């Protein structure tokens, strides 16, 4: 438990540091990926909703404190987007699975690696949508260039989540868990 907590703390700190220092160096077409959101998506599938929420909250708080771009935006947006992805793609609870089975549905989860990518895609879609909406509310017209940049950011972050999930899940010990019967 303590080991897991330490790993979680280190992963959260690493996600923040990578987002604050490294993301700009790996930009494609001047569009930097959201490394923190990609790692949150990995944690969402690997560790669950509670860890997702706290990780997104800490990252949002640290970004809000250390890189204050706009008031409230990071502190609110990161947990909100992460929890939206977690609601859709985190492991379903036993209760939920039993409920689906009782309704005659084929209960179960999608493959974890696919859910990680889809979670990152959904989270980043919401994140970029809110950002564009915020910009449009401030009086700036949204044009094709901004939509293109948002699309690149979503796809780039999703691809990074798909790549990073393998080392992160291995480090978190997810691959060593026994399959649930």
């Amino acid at each position, binding site marked *: 438990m303590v080991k897991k907590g330490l790993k979680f703390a280190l992963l959260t700190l690493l996600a923040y540091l990578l987002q604050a220092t490294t993301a700009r160096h790996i930009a494609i077409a001047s569009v930097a990926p959201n490394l923190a959101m990609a790692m949150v998506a990995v944690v969402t599938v690997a560790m669950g909703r509670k860890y997702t929420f*706290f990780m997104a*909250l*800490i990252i949002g*708080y640290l970004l809000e*404190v*250390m890189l204050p771009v706009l008031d409230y935006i990071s502190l609110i947006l990161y947990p909100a987007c992460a929890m939206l992805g977690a609601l859709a793609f985190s492991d379903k609870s036993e209760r939920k699975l039993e409920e689906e089975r009782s309704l005659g549905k084929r209960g179960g989860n999608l493959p974890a690696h696919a859910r990680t990518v889809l979670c990152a895609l959904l989270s980043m879609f919401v994140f970029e949508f809110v950002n564009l909406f915020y910009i449009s509310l401030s009086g700036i017209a949204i044009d094709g260039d901004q939509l293109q940049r948002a699309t690149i950011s979503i796809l780039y972050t999703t691809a990074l989540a798909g790549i990073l999930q393998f080392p992160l899940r291995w480090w978190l010990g997810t691959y060593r868990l026994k399959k649930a019967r």
Partner: protein
Amino acid sequence: MRLKEPKAERPRNRNSGTRTVWKRIFITLAALVVLGLAGSHLFGLITGNPALGVPEDMVASVLTPVQSGFSSIVDSVVNYLYKLKLRANLELAYNELKQQNEQLVYQAMLADELSYKLSVYEELYDEISVNESMNPLVATVIGHDSGNYFSVFTINKGTNDGVQDFMAVTMEGALVGYTYDVTATKASVRTIIDSEASIAALISSTRDQGTVRGTLGVDGTPMCRMYYLPDDHLPRPGDTVVTSGVVMSFPKGIPIGTVRESTRGMESNKSYIVVEPVADFRHIEYVIVLRYQPLAEAVAGQTSSSDSLTFTPLETSKPIPTIQIGSDFYQLAPTPEPTATPTAPPLDGSVLLDSATPLAQQTPVPGADTQSYEYQVPSSMATGNSYGFTLAPTATPTPSPPPLDISVEED
């Protein structure tokens, strides 16, 4: 064999329950701390209370050195990767530039070679155009004799191109040698510095005739010697030696060289003068073969036209004696016998005109014959700009040396 006790039925450790409680308390506190920090930040932004910014300052003071260290590590890694990329790009650019430089150097060398060939061809064209009547032919040297005693090279023209034995070969307006051993596709050229070569020549200033031979096999120097000169004239250094046009079917007037030493009169054991060739025998690449053949018709035409060249003396107050030298050219008209009674003048004026005044068209006019059979040195080459020599003027007369005492005592 004793079966392992099921895990669920094993007695629970008392400490594990206490530990779980503490863990939950710890997790709850951590969550509360995080939520409290976030809440204090939100309320601080809303209310603007500076006291709520204290936790932010504490977090920032803790996080700043960590972030600085991490950022420096990331920057170092990025700089290293950037340098690697830059080095790879520089290496790539260097290789491309090196390749381009090699291509440019090759093109420059090719351009220089083509420029040199163009200048050579221009000079050849000038030489050919002024000696068109000599039926010139440009040939390329395809082989050199590497011996120390003979100077022979091979050209890529033969009987298929009209080349025959003993045709004059020139280069840059000067005689190089003559052809021999001609086959269908190639011919050998013996240069004038070869000791086997023997060419009839004359000194342009005094018109003294002699024979030029090479000295390469005699003393190893690329020079010529001129033999059989008259004894009563001493050529001066700088006098031009040209072909005389006799013996071989050479055109007349091809420059051979210039007189370098003329010590024949001072040293009685020397029966020759040293002639320095005009042609540069170390840099022979292209030559011109003068396929000159004195046509019988042309010679006959000249002879027939010269029939009218009858020397007619002008009227003088003194009687001119009749001189018979033996040559028809110099034979003077016979003196008419004096008559006692002068003949009456003819009535027809044309008869008088025919008999007393030579016809204008019968008088040979220099240059009237457009086809010259004497070698013409191209004007650009005669200036000495391209050959490095200048035809020395020989207008200044010099006293002839005292004739040798060749009297023979009579018994």
